[in-house]
């Protein structure tokens, strides 16, 4: 318990340093956040036009998109605002032999690495998620609570999956682009109605590319207020993190130092 508290204090301090570092370039900080907010807004406009022109498609309506975007963007924001050194960045660090800096420090290696970078633009995602939720009209305290919990779980799922894809670099060498492609794939599938997919594609979205646990399932959790579904979502997050941790630490045995002069300020 004491160790967990110490780790959390350390991660909080790490996040505070990352935030102050990002805010040093104030104009860039603000434009990145606003840019990402507008970026998400344009996707939103696409769906507004789409449903306005074509009506509901396989049971999906604009109300579902509001909730889907609210959870997916808030989850993405929560996840990568704090743990942006996952996915392609993690793959790059491994391939370049730049884990040495973290290996010599007496902290949890995986958490230290992934929390060492903050993605500023994801603050725009975070803000967008909150604004998108306003459009859903679900203001019952239980709905709000389920929305927040589901979004946090979606964020954990995003990061857990990115730990797996980034750790592939231990086994494949330069897995940076593969990791980037897989992250793009999970994000893309998340933001489309899952009712579009059937058969093998649907199976993959619940297993190898678990986009369903970031978009479709959390949406159902909020819509149906189902505790069982929430427990299932929690279970899926635990599985992905279990796999991610195993892939990372098993891969670490294959890690070779890059002997690169690495200065982290």
């Amino acid at each position, binding site marked *: 318990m004491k160790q967990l508290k110490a780790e959390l204090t350390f991660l909080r301090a790490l996040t505070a340093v990352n935030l102050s570092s990002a805010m040093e370039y104030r104009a860039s900080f603000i434009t*990145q956040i*606003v840019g990402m907010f507008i970026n998400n807004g344009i996707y939103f406009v696409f769906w507004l036009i789409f449903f306005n022109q074509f009506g509901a498609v396989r049971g999906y309506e604009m109300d579902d998109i509001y909730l889907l975007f609210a959870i997916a963007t808030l989850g993405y924001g929560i996840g990568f605002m704090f743990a942006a050194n996952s996915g392609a960045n993690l793959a790059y660090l491994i391939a370049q032999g730049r884990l040495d800096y973290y290996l010599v420090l007496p902290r949890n290696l995986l958490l230290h690495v992934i929390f060492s970078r903050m993605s500023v*633009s994801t603050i725009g995602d975070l803000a967008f998620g909150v604004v998108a939720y306003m459009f859903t009209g679900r203001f019952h305290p239980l709905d709000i609570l389920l929305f927040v919990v589901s979004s946090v779980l979606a964020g954990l799922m995003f990061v857990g999956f990115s730990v797996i894809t980034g750790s592939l670099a231990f086994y494949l060498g330069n897995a940076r682009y593969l990791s980037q492609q897989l992250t793009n794939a999970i994000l893309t599938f998340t933001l489309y109605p899952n009712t579009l997919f059937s058969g093998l594609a649907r199976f993959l979205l619940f297993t190898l590319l678990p986009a369903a646990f970031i978009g479709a399932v959390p949406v159902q959790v909020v819509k149906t207020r189902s505790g069982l579904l929430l427990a299932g979502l929690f279970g899926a997050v635990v599985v992905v993190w279990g796999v991610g941790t195993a892939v990372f630490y098993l891969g670490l045995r294959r890690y070779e130092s890059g002997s690169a002069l690495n200065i982290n300020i």
Partner: protein
Amino acid sequence: MRMQWRSTGVKYGAIMQTNLQNQLAYLWDAMGRAVFILLIMYIFAQLWTAVYETRQTPDIAGLTLANTIWYFLLAEVVELGKFRHDQAISDEVKDGSIAYTLVRPYNYLAYHFANGLGETAVKMFLVFVLGAPVALHFAGLPTVNVAHLPLVALVMGLGLLVDFCIASMIGLMAFVMEDTFSLRLIYQKLIFILGGLLIPVDFLPDWLQRIARVLPFNLTTYAPAKLFVAFSWAQFWQILLLQMVWLAILGLLLWAQYRWATQRLAVNGG
């Protein structure tokens, strides 16, 4: 004069060829990046099949489902293949290396154009080759008149020039902004809707179509994709005229911005 033109052509041709060879040397790497088209084409095919099924209609705004799927392939070929030099310009401005590249014996923007052309050719080819089987699977062979293909290629080329001008202007904005990431993101998303990448311009509400058709965003992606699947002479001439007008406007703006930026550049030390 003729000799000078010839040596200029040889110089930029060599730049293009070098990057083309570079891309071909790392073909697997380029293919790995182009694989995204498989995913996006699969999603688009599912989405628009569902739309046509729901509406129970053979065509929407004159486009059949097969037309729509091939339209998206062409639009993605342009989007995923087009120049990405704005980031390079922005980086050069930020790290100061632009001071060195500007004194080299070539025009800075022409260099980026020639350099990007080699890369674009490889990327567009790969995206098409990878995406075509998906389109074939869901839509069958496209109904294309081969005689129109050179005209589609012309529109595509001019569209890439329009995009080059806008992307260069975004890159050069690094002289006044610390980071051009947000501008790039917004431009990309304008292409998504007003450029017809996520939804063909013909499917937009009338009021938005009127706006989208006069803006330059549709000239890069929508224009060649639409002419590829449903060629009409009236639309071809209309697009060509608009491309000329926007190229003149954007070219002038880019030239002014480039002059202003290079005059503003202060190089200290050596």
